[in-house]
């Protein structure tokens, strides 16, 4: 937990004003040891070990095609790839790693087949055609379809759980201080706390 997040959360929370003394002391201690509370001693990424150069280029291009930069950051602006590297290195089984790597190979092969070019070099209409073929695939058992679904899940999760998107785009309130079950959709901000 970062100190400034906690302070911001605390300031935003109506509940904190009402904290009894014991809780306040506990809170102060928590603030005093922010790193001790942090199991996410941030990822030691093992860059490059899991993907070939082509696979990495395909994945970066796929991430950008799924969640491009608009008036808000894109998937590569928040370095979704760094978290995917962590998942490849320390979370997935060998079999799951292979689903993704062979999937990326198959996506590259599909791009070559459909447009005669590398997936990572596609833009505009040719890119849309390949993405439409992947996203709308009726046969979900092909290597390309399985790799695409897995990559899409990783990109979406990695993007929306990133610090920048949580803070700047979703404006997630860590300590909302209240629960409202029928708020108007547009009057306030805040993403879902848990996915």
């Amino acid at each position, binding site marked *: 937990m970062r100190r400034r997040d906690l302070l911001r959360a605390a300031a935003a929370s109506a509940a904190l004003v009402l904290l009894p*003394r*014991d809780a306040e002391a*506990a*809170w102060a201690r928590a603030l005093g040891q922010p790193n001790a509370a942090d199991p996410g001693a941030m*990822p030691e990424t093992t860059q490059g070990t899991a993907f070939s150069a082509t696979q990495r280029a395909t994945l970066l291009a796929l991430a950008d095609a799924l969640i491009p930069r608009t008036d808000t950051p894109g998937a590569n602006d928040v370095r979704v790839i760094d978290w995917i590297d962590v998942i490849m290195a320390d979370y997935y089984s060998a079999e799951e790693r292979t689903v993704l790597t062979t999937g990326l190979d198959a996506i590259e092969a599909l791009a070559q087949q459909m447009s005669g070019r590398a997936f990572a070099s596609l833009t505009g209409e040719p890119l849309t055609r390949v993405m439409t073929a992947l996203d709308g695939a009726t046969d979900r058992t092909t290597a390309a379809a399985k790799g695409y679904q897995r990559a899409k899940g990783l990109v979406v999760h990695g993007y929306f759980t990133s*610090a920048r998107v949580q803070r700047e785009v979703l404006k997630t309130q860590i300590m909302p201080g209240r629960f409202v079950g*029928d708020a*108007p*959709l547009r009057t306030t901000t805040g*993403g879902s706390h848990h996915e």
Partner: protein
Amino acid sequence: MSEQTPRRVYDAIVVGSGISGGWAAKELTERGLHTIVLEAGGPVDFGGKDFVEHIQPYDMKFRGWGDRHALERDQPVQRQCYACDETGRKFFVNDHENPYTSPSDAPFKWFRGRQVGGRSIMWGRQVYRWSDLDFEANARDGHGTDWPIRYKDIAPWYSHVERFIGVTGAKEGLPQLPDGEFLPPMAMTVVERAARERILKAFGGERVMTIGRAAILTKNHNGRAACHYCGPCERGCVTHSYFNSIGSTLPAAERTGRLTLRPHSVVAEVLYDAKRGRARGVRVIDAQTKKEMVFEAKVVFLCASAIESVRLLLNSSSTRFPDGLANSSGTLGRYVMDHHYGSGAGGTMPGFLDQRTIGSRPNGIYVARFRNVTTPSKDFLRGYGMQGGSGRSGWGRGSGMPGFGAAFKQSLIDDLGPWSLSVGGWGETLPHPDNRITLDPEVKDAWGIPAARIDVRWRENELAMNKDIIASAVELMEAAGCTNVRPNRTMQPPGHCIHEMGGARMGKTAQDGVLNRWNQAWDVPNLFITDGAAMASSACQNPSITYMALTARAAAHAVAELKRRSL
């Protein structure tokens, strides 16, 4: 055990520091007894490094997915509990140090926490009073033995507990689910309110969906702060807004000046003094040094959790009690229960798209038992309650949603997706003598204590009830106005609900059970067992508040008996 083993003498020994142990410590010390609480696990630093409810996904290496390889290696059983996640796994035991066995055709899930505070740290916080429909159930249909108590015996103790811990809930006036002394209820979502009204209408008022009753503060209470709706209570709470023993009962005990809390104290045996016919104390193995020691007291309270307390008694055999301490009835280890759960239904609630929730409500909705209350079922005995909730999935729906590109992204940011609504059943389990805990003849834990062998099976009544749970959950979703209604047929194995109880049940006579109406062992008058082991039936309500009320009641009785010199 060597004669040089250090001896320490107290008025009372409490084994375990969780939901029940904390209450025993509070009540015994406040009533004047110098009490030692022996906890097998280590201390928890609630204000510092251990309570991490505000950790955000980006501060976690796996962004909330959990350290899968470590979980698979160290906690293959514990990881199956939802709360044993990336940050919460430290509150669950290492399965290799703490083994148990079950038959290959009867898997049992035993989710355990060994630390000061026990499972009160990551419990589900739902609290529901039992009624006489529950206390009279065994007598009415002949399964199990009649409870020696009725609602009137426990009602004042429910109030005593509620006033201290703080319980949020809405009064409904239902005889089968008595109202308590509630703090203001949490809000239902707009979808839950609509569902409640439609269901009331569709079933003529027989099926009542209400907001969950939870041990969470909706206003400041007894020096603890109101909930700030951050969400994941099971990771701890620095403001002590939900009830656990380390933020409430143990500090109260501490304030009396009569509490000694000893962590890392694995109790291996209750020592029996055959001459006096009393428990003399307990034999303890220090979890860190593995040194043995003995603690003695006038009264011993076992609050180690149902299975642990039973295991401890089974491991405390003597010439007088060759089959386990206080087991002249032969019922010790038998009639073990859990709630069968997992099945239910969910659906999509059309409309309400211009509304959303703010804050993470650590509580759901509850459907009070309706089967065999007014309308009898021809298929099964007893009944079930239902729990559930509603929400909009937000960006979480993204990986399964068709689309890509700018419009896809914007939709995940702006639109929260449709409302979903779901409920699942929590079903009563009949007490059965062959649902049983014994000691495994071979497997021992890291301290050399024989492991529990647990053989608990869902039987005919549970299976029939489970079918009905699915059918009526579908009916409820349809009555609520949901579309795309999907039955969920996942009936979890025994233990998974973490409501394991029974094994040292109360009974009206010494032949019927291990304990009398005061949670006092018939055979050993200064021995009390006040955790889930004492339960003679399971009802369908979440049981923790009943353990708390029975513990407080038993402590008051024990102290009165001590004063009368009858222990």
